[in-house]
């Protein structure tokens, strides 16, 4: 598959009469977008608010973050969810890079996160650096939780696709081409380079911990092989409420850093063969089956090395370790990417499970560290749930609006796919 990704760089966001881009500024039509969200009768209130880098703004509870994009050719945006079911990962896609749709609203499952656009904690989330179009939703009275989650998820995706539409005819500031060939041809192309794959573990514990692959619930997947460009092009969307710090937002699926960085060395130091997609189900039998299948695919494709990333912590550590062990036993080299939860004093085990084969691990930081959030002039959403959100606790929220909470309350702060520069080391 060959994907042409045209990037239109967005440096500011403003309200406008119509949704369009002019000299790097994205103008969004507030009422039009609000109407779009309200088409879903499960949502009775919708407000579009804007948040820009450097502003004294706190956004919470954040559900998902999505980059506005459009499929110019080769399929539709978010297939099986917003667009009709079709393959993605080839053709041409235009992205409003630097802009982000952020869904906000009353808590769904109290694992939704926080973004500060300025101040000492802004550095922990990539969404303090994007021009954010916040979709603040109000669910219908008594709306069932899972319905609310779905309504919120769809609202964000629809708004992102709608905004993305304005990029269809634009001339991109930068055009990047990503290509992975069919297996046999790809191997032939760089016969002397090591064959590398990426084992991408999707959060699928269920009960508000779900991810969707072409609209299919990842719980129902058996591990499958895919082109990397499919993920970069909207094949996977987030529908989960894992701890905010290591939630892989839809934005992060579109910008999967492992895929981007493997492509950077593709044809130079390694031969990037493809992605093995797997899940993190709660039943032991599922974990055993999925990790067996992962190792089988690694062997089938004769991979020399793999990177494995997980989503969430605790329970999925067991999947991470099973994958590591079984893949290592096929003779394939493994490097794991994870974040750490060693407790308030930093002295406990960072992971809930471990195998002797897990010899090479990259750390994405310690999520248990307590950080101070000074008050912000404006709150998009509400602070009502801070003390219940993951990372918050009784007494987290001070009367002046400042917060003391664990780093894990910040969205994607320790995301376990290596998107950030944050890491932990032993002291």
């Amino acid at each position, binding site marked *: 598959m060959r994907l042409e990704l045209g990037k239109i760089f967005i440096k500011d966001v403003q309200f406008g009469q119509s949704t369009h881009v002019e000299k790097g500024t994205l103008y969004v039509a507030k009422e039009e977008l609000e109407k779009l969200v309200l088409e879903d009768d499960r949502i009775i209130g919708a407000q579009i608010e804007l948040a820009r880098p450097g502003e004294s703004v706190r956004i919470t509870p954040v559900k998902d973050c999505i980059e506005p994009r459009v499929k110019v050719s080769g399929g539709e945006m978010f297939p099986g969810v917003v667009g009709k079911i079709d393959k993605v990962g080839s053709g041409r896609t235009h992205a409003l890079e630097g802009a982000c749709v952020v869904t906000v609203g009353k808590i769904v*499952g109290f*694992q939704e996160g926080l973004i500060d656009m300025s101040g000492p904690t802004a550095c922990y989330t990539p969404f303090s650096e994007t021009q954010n179009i916040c979709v603040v939703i109000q669910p219908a009275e008594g709306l069932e*939780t*899972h319905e609310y989650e779905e309504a919120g998820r769809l609202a964000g995706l629809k708004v992102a696709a709608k905004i993305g539409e304005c990029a269809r005819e634009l001339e991109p500031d930068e055009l990047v081409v990503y290509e992975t060939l069919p297996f046999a041809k790809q191997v032939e192309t760089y016969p002397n380079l090591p064959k*590398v794959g990426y084992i991408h573990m999707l959060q699928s514990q269920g*009960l*508000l911990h779900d991810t969707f692959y072409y609209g299919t619930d990842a719980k129902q997947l058996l591990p499958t092989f895919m082109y990397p460009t499919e993920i970069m092009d909207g094949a996977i969307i987030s529908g989960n409420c894992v*701890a905010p710090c290591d939630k892989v937002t839809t934005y992060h699926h579109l910008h999967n*850093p*492992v895929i*981007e*960085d493997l492509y*950077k*060395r593709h044809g130079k130091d*390694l031969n990037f063969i493809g992605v093995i997609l797997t899940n993190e189900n709660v039943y032991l039998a599922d974990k055993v089956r999925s990790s067996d299948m992962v190792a089988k695919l690694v062997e089938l494709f004769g991979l020399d*090395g793999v*990177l494995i990333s997980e989503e969430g912590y*605790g329970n999925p550590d067991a999947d991470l370790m099973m994958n590591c062990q079984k893949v290592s036993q096929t003779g394939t*080299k*493994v490097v794991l*990417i*994870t974040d*750490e*939860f*060693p*407790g*308030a*004093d*930093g*002295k*406990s*085990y*960072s*992971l809930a499970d*471990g195998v002797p084969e897990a*010899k*090479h*691990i*990259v*750390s994405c*930081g*310690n999520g*248990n*560290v307590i950080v101070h959030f000074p008050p912000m002039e404006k709150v998009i959403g509400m602070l009502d749930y801070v003390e*219940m959100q*993951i*990372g918050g*606790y009784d007494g987290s929220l001070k009367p002046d609006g400042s917060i003391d909470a*664990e*780093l894990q309350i910040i969205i994607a702060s320790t995301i376990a796919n*290596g*998107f*950030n*520069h*944050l*890491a*932990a*080391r*032993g*002291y």
Partner: protein
Amino acid sequence: MKKRVVHYINNFFAGVGGEDMAHIPPEKREGVVGPGMALQPALGDEAEIVSTLVCGDNYMGEKTDEALDQLIAWIKEEKPDLVIAGPAFNAGRYGYACGSLVKKVQEELGIPAFTAMYDENPGVDTFRKDAYILKVADSAAGMRSAIPLMAKFAKKILNGEEILGPDEEGYFERGIRVNYFHEKRGSERAVEMLLQVMAGKDPVTEYPLPKIDRVDPVPPVKDMAHTKVALVTSGGIVPTDNPDHIESSSASKYGVYSIEGMEQMSKDLFTSIHGGYDRQYVLENPNLVVPLDAMRELEKEGVIGELADYYIATTGTGTSTDNAKRFGEDFVNKLKEDSVGAVILTST
């Protein structure tokens, strides 16, 4: 005003014999003794070793509590800003004494304390999590290089300067995980690490995985019909007002709650404060996590002897393994006292 330092050494370094005198009880001497004579000038004019405490290593090993209590009492009187113990080099019992003392000084008096040892001193592994242990040579021949290292570290602590990482400061890593921003993002480092591993190299892992404790399952209960059973959960079910303020994640405590006379867990009396799962069904029916209804039936049917009239709860999500271990070690005493013979652990 000069900062006050108390120094701890063993009988050998105090010049009171060798192995033959290792039984001597604690002594307190004014000013510097032994290695303190070199340490004092290295500390300069801003700090003064006000007293030196001495104890035989055997005495410390055999009557640890008595020795430590006496030493702590003297240190408390001196109101020091810092306690330095050793260097113990590769002397195992001396290392144990130094480690025990600096740990207790910090925990009981809240006064900063550190020691220094050789890599293979067993005291390093025993106490590295509890205190700074500077890396020194294996014998007293290394005193000359140990003194400036210890003096420099002491001055940093006394001046309230930031203590940097183990490599910069020369201490044994304490196993405390501290955040920093790397110049490269994680995925880029992972790709580089994989390229090295595939090239047959063994790059340094960013997280050395410790050996994870595994608990072997106990054998099945032989006679359930005469066994008292208790329910213990990490599912965050607490009385609705959460009287112990148990956290919704990263719990630092657990609670013991009465179910005396209750036939089932009522949603009016109990709730879930757990932040790691979808609580919707459990809020309606807390028996899903604390299965009191089913246990009462088993009790009536005589399948179990009886059900303890309380259950124990904490939140499992994000809770550190050290905390979880501490909870278990703590409440198991109550369960034993109450003659509980089996526990059903429910998770979520």
